């Protein structure tokens, strides 16, 4: 079975070890929720998996469908099918959503989309996510609200159709309706592409829409509990303290 595996991963940021030996397996076509209190290392893990140069992997391996990508550049990881939906996406002046996405999508394809083909595809995906078409001329995330930024991340997800998507607090900063629309968008790509989802979240709400097959709890850089949906529900009731004791 296709999977994204992390084996005994240790990660340092500015000389401090944040992730202290984490091993997890994310299956293709499954939703794996990664939960944990603030400062437990969830975003560090997500950024390191995507290859952010600030996050140094000092030990362990990342294996994507059998290929060791521990030391690959972020663009290679992306082209092999990994995607990160950022908690705080960067704003880039002067680069329009349209040009950026066309470059990114065509980059992955042998047969490139023409301008018209691409425009039609983008228009359709934007409609599904309830994003106004005028956004294609806007610069990446510049002047976007928190919710708009998150929707834009999921638009990219649905355009790039990765094999594994790391969703770093995609539900934060969004209202209930936006969470539903975004979750529907994610589910659609998941079904079409048999995508594996690693969902980083504090809250139960998005898990109502994206039912997790597995739930892991990260605490102080280590996995302290693993279970099914009932684990997320327990956290909702007892808080992380109840689980990490």
């Amino acid at each position: 079975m296709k999977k994204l595996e992390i084996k005994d991963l240790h990660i340092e940021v500015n000389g401090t070890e944040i992730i202290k030996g984490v091993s997890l397996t994310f299956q293709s076509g499954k939703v794996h929720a990664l939960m944990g209190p603030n400062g437990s290392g969830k975003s560090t893990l997500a950024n390191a998996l995507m290859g952010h140069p600030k996050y140094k992997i000092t030990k362990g391996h990342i294996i994507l469908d059998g290929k060791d990508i521990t030391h690959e550049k972020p663009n290679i990881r992306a082209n092999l099918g990994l995607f990160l939906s950022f908690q705080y996406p960067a704003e880039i002046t002067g680069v329009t959503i349209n040009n950026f996405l066309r470059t990114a999508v065509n980059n992955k394809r042998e047969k490139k989309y023409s301008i018209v083909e691409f425009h039609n595809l983008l228009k359709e995906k934007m409609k599904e996510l309830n994003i106004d078409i005028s956004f294609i001329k806007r610069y990446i995330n510049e002047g976007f609200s928190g919710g708009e930024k998150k929707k834009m991340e999921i638009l990219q997800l649905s355009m790039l159709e990765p094999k594994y998507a790391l969703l770093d607090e995609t539900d934060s900063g969004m209202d209930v309706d936006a969470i539903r629309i975004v979750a529907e968008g994610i589910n659609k790509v998941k079904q079409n592409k048999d995508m594996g989802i690693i969902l980083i979240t504090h809250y139960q709400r998005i898990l109502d829409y994206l039912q997790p097959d597995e739930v892991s709890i990260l605490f102080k850089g280590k996995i302290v509990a693993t279970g099914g949906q009932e684990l997320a529900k327990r956290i909702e009731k007892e808080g992380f303290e109840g689980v990490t004791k």
Partner: protein
Amino acid sequence: MKENIQCIGISIQKEKEKGKELFKSLETPILKYGQGMQISLKELDLNTVLAKENEEERMSIDAPKEVRVLHPSELSREEQDWYWEGLVSYKENKFLALHQAILNDARIIIIPKNINCKEPIKIKSHVSKKAKAETIIVIVEQNASAIIIEENSSEKEAHYKSQVIQVYAKEDSSIEFCTLQDLSTETYNFTIKRGRAERNAKISWRDMVLGGKLSQLDVQTNLICPQAQMEASSGYFGKGGQVFDLYSEAKHMSSSTECTLYNRGVLCNGARTVTRGKIIIEKNNSKCKAKQKSDNLIIGKNARCDAVPILEVENDDVSCFHGATITHLDEEQLFYLSSRGIELESAKAMIIAGYLEPIINTFPNEEFQEKIREKIWKRMENEKL
């Protein structure tokens, strides 16, 4: 077709003679702006330039039929006196004297009263060799408006290009003078742009400076009546040993006048820029609004930028703003684009090209904007970003 310079310009011929005399009498200026900011002229021998006059090439001007394009000799004596040195004195410095001495092309563009030009006036100037000096005078009559799109290019054999542009914007008129300077990096370039805006007139200078070994751009505008406005925005992309010396100035000579001075540029690997902006508000002139800003992106090794804002404000009842930023490529932006599968070098090029978009977008013509983008991408080719 080679034009007969004799018949168009007794005055031009005389100008040249005057210029040569002036040139001999003036010292080469030192481009020193305090605090260790100096632009070296040691590789430029102005006497050599004088001997390299290029008499063959002319600029082309494509204007809508309602616009009048004249040679200087077609102006009346009175008009010549009024406009020829109305905003520029060739005695100002040796570069201007040299301009006058080698002047080989001059045109007057008149946008008649109440004419609103729908199509832009297009000016093209190419220098293939030696040294060339051009003068353009634009007179925008009362309640008229126009857009001028100018493209300057040169071959690497072209040593020197000098340009003097004067714009007279009469009451209720508006003019946008847009220039793409795409000269060879072997060409020295000195450009003077001067404007005079009357009541409720607006002059917008838009420049994209890409070429030139040493390129000096000096844009000054006098706002002489209430509601006169001036906007000067310049973008630049420099690389290698290119040096840009950019100056813009607004002189508020009346109350209730407005100006915006904005420049934004990218400097790669060894490029050097000094940007200076000056706002002058005289004592009796209140309710003026003035803004100036300089944003710079530094790439790679040995690129340097100095941004100098100068405010000479003698009236308290005005609104002034100034600011400058100097930044490097942002690691988070690069990671963001890389995480979408875009190679690092392409990601850098996208961010750099994007950095200049706020200036490109001020150019009024989409086709022209696209041309500027292409030129910027071309200049980034084979460059270590």
